[in-house]
């Protein structure tokens, strides 16, 4: 599939005098797993926060084209990005509702489906409005996702009591319960052991197979190279490379950004020293 799903066009984000992202343009295609990589401080999370409405971009546009509709993400209020444009996200530092159970976390994610408006929410107090059926469907969906991430046995445990790897998976399941067309993951493999990283890769492939496109920030190159269809490389807020994993891996600019680029003189000097 080659339909563009998310188009970022000349996105610039300034914090006071600091330009975190400058004139960034890229496209994430529908049905792809798109990875945004780059050294620390390259502006990856800033791009994410712009896409998911936590920052308002200084200039530029972000458009999500889903079916016939085009949603201008740079102008939508934060909660509507999830609700209307169907973009879900997870956080680099996990943000679960720690004092609520695993199941409750997934129920909160289906809030808009369960309560289309405040009036519905208040009528439900008196048992009006078919809330019971909606709740039953919501529990079914939650159960499906709990099974998918292997947490069904822990449904009634508090989310805060889960081990780290399970919390990561629960956060992905929670985001998926909002029925997104684009799932944005901020370093989902951070802190996972190799086996858990493999499980995560499988999960993301299954999510893509289920029809949801994925945009991810990741430092774990193993995961990125294995599952990505398309990689965007940032450095100092600018795009330095964009393409399929094999192309990006071979790009000298990417290698320089990751290994540190020396001045020509330095390299000559090192070469001279080695020769001597």
């Amino acid at each position, binding site marked *: 599939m080659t339909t563009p799903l998310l188009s970022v066009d000349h996105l610039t984000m300034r914090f006071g005098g600091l330009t975190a992202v400058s004139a960034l343009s890229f496209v994430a295609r529908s049905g792809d797993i798109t990875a945004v990589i780059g050294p620390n401080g390259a502006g990856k999370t800033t791009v994410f926060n712009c896409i998911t409405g936590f920052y308002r971009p200084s200039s530029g546009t972000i458009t999500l084209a889903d079916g016939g509709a085009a949603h201008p993400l740079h102008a939508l209020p934060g909660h509507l*990005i999830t609700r209307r444009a169907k973009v879900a996200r997870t956080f680099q530092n996990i943000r679960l509702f720690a004092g609520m159970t695993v199941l409750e976390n997934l129920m909160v994610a289906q*809030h808009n489906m369960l309560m289309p408006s405040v009036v519905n929410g208040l009528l439900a107090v008196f048992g009006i409005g078919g809330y019971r059926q909606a709740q039953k469907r919501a*529990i079914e969906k939650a159960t499906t996702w709990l099974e998918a991430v292997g947490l069904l046995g822990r449904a009634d445990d508090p989310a805060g009591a889960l081990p780290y790897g399970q919390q990561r998976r629960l956060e992905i399941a929670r985001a998926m319960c909002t029925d997104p067309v684009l799932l944005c993951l901020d370093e989902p493999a951070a802190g996972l052991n190799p086996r858990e990283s493999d499980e995560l890769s499988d999960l993301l492939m299954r999510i893509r197979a289920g029809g949801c496109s994925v945009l991810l920030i990741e430092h774990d190159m193993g995961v990125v190279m294995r599952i990505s269809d398309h990689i965007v490389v940032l450095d100092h807020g600018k795009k330095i490379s964009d393409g399929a994993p094999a192309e990006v891996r071979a790009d000298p600019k990417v290698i320089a950004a990751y290994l540190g680029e020396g001045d020509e003189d330095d390299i000559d000097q090192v070469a001279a020293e080695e020769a001597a």
Partner: protein
Amino acid sequence: MSARPLPPAAMLRDAGLSALVALGLFVVLIGLKLTPTDAGMVLEQRWRALAIVVATVFVGRLLMLQWRVWRPASAPTPRVLAEALQRSGRWVAPLLLVVAVVLPLFSGRYVIDVGILVLTYVMLGWGLNIVVGLAGLLDLGYVAFYAVGAYSYALFSTTFHFGFWVTLPVAGLLAACWGVILGFPVLRLRGDYLAIVTLAFGEIIRVVLINWTSFTGGPNGVSDIPRPTLFGLKFNGSGDPDTFAVFFGVDYSITQRIMFLYYVILGLALLTNWVSLRLRRLPLGRAWEALREDEIACRALGIDVTVTKLTAFAIGATFGGFAGAFFATRQGFVSPESFTFTESALVLAIVVLGGLGSQLGVALAALVMIGGTEALRFVNDLLSSLGIQSDFDFTQYRMLVFGIALVVVMVMRPRGLVSGRVPSVALGQRTEIAAELVAQGRG
């Protein structure tokens, strides 16, 4: 604390040091006293009193050191206590309800009056619990909605002669409006900042009530507020056909009216409880709790944080308004003096002491705080029935006693009497979530 026993010499040295500090402190404070007489100032020496104080410190310090040694190594932890309380919670709540229902049938006017007072605070506590306990928004101005409700009924009934049952929903609605009005400016505030603005809001309402004399009667308040009726039947001894006594062919007694008021507030409080418990299991209540846990995550899940906060303020305020209307009709008189910050603080103390988000805890805390204060009046009677004559007036010290009690409870059970959280939905069995995991909300 270490249970390692100190050698006797070290203990004596420690106690001696404490006694020395006490001596240094009190030698001028207690040992010497200036008394003005006709012949000028006389320096009175009170070495005996000083000796008693220093000796007390010495012995007290020794006992304290000894206590540290003797104290059982593993005192029952609060967790065990909490679990016991949770188990007993199953029957405590129904038992309290039964007692509340039958209480007026077996007690005199005074007890029913105290019951009405306790139930009013239970209701206010449950109302505030929605805002503070569930949504995690610290509200120091809850009394404002109580005042709006009270004045709504007072003014509607005295100006337009509306009845209590007609005005009750209106009072709730008006309070809800003010809840939303308060909600808007504070939407972006969190924690301490939110607390300060809500505090100011409570004061603004009170100051307006005092100064807008033409509308509210100013400091004189509104008097001659009509009493509530039972389907049009009044409670008085006039002998008219539309009074309760004549209609049912019984002798009029003032207890009938008090009992009626008691059941009205009991009904209103139970309504508050029912709505809160029900909302907790519905998406709206779950969104409130999610908001308390993590506002940013809520936003990322597509929850409209603005609407969610405003509904919490509005629904909490509605019940404050109901309680206010009841207060007005019970007193027959309202004035701004009834709606000071102390009231807000008391209701908040009930919620915090009971345990944020816990319905049973709030009810228990209200019973202890309000009922307990009243109970202190009877300490002397109790003592004299035991054969001890005491001139000590405990009621003078009741605020002190309750201050100390509050501190002690909060030290021993920092998350309130009934902490922990019961999940709102479960696939299998609902198991309580330990209080340590549950966020307290920072606004």
